[in-house]
């Protein structure tokens, strides 16, 4: 399902969030996503990378070329951190709820922007968010 050309990069500073955007944009363009879909994926990556940095205490992102269940090609991103985890996943995914001072749209927004969204987290055990975007 996944090509082995995964690329992993650390997210340890706000500069890394910028680099994540650049890497994701390049990967999305290489996978043949439209300009709108590229922008959506980059924006979702930006939100998730900032969460990883700000709430997860830093972590990493892996970018990989992938193929969806219906055979469409695309890009999958996996964000991992070893942070405090999310105690109430349902609440974190609802719009307008924020643990910090943000708008509370980051996580639900990222889900809206992508075709595939997976979140695994437990209190104290870190968080893994997987998103994917397929070509049309």
């Amino acid at each position, binding site marked *: 399902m996944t090509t082995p050309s995964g690329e992993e990069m650390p997210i340890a500073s706000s500069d890394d969030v910028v680099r994540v*955007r650049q890497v994701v944009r390049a990967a999305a363009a290489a996978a043949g996503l439209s*300009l*709108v879909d590229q*922008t*959506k994926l980059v924006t979702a990556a*930006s939100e998730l990378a900032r969460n990883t940095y700000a709430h997860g205490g830093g972590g990493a992102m892996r970018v990989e070329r992938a193929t969806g269940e219906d055979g469409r090609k695309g890009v999958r991103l996996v964000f991992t951190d070893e942070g405090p985890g999310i105690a109430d996943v349902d609440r974190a995914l609802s*719009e307008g709820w924020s643990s910090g001072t943000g*708008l509370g749209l980051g996580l639900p*927004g990222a889900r809206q*922007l992508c075709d595939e969204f997976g979140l695994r987290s437990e209190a104290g055990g870190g968080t893994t968010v997987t998103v994917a975007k397929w070509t049309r």
Partner: protein
Amino acid sequence: MTGGADDTPIAELLRSWREPVLGRWIELVGETVHGRLSEAEVRSELTELYGLVERALEGDTAAGDELRAALAEISRGRARHGFSPTETAVGVFALKQSLYEQIRMTRDQRAYSELIDFSSYVDELGLATFETYAAAREQVIADQADQLLELSTPVVRLWDRVLGVPLVGTLDSARAQIAMETLLQALVTTGARYAVIDITGVPAVDTEVAQHLMKTVMAARLMGTHCVVSGIRPQIAQTIVALGIEFGDIVTKATLADALAYVLERSGLRVVGEPEG
């Protein structure tokens, strides 16, 4: 090693072959920096270094420290003037080659064994040079990033009492803060009634960027200035909708031209074309 405690054979060799070895070293370095440094500059630099190497090898620790300081100074200079890492490091390593050529020519067997020790000594100096070079480059990059931060948030006058803030690049918290401060300061000095914030050059608008924009607009509004956000491209518009960001009553336009037209109209100004002919 043979020789006296305060005079190692390699130092002796360097001293007795000063003329040819130093000459060849200058020649080798001159080839790598061709044109960017004059021969006289290279000569004076290397002559000083050569003297320090001689003294350091004799066991003069003060000269050793001085040698490292001089190398650090030279590599910092190279980094600033855009020399490549290879060109910088070769400057040091070329001394090895120069000495080796001399030993081969004279077929001095004793000198060959000395060359190995000397070689690792020069390697060590070369690596130290390289480290300073890298540190200096990092500094140059950090300085440029700071300069860019200052340069990239200009506030321009679009019309009488209408300001424009063209934002280009990543809008992180630091940039957003500077943009807001520059705009608010300009509002005070110009007494502008309208400000157009153009985000055509911002590659991605996520919740953080949106929040910064909204705060800037709110702050300007408190000062009595009406803000328009322009440069919303189609892909950005779709992303903002998908993210669920509400810009509320903030006026947004697709292009800077639309925003300017809107502002002029609100000011009661009309652009009239002069009849041709």
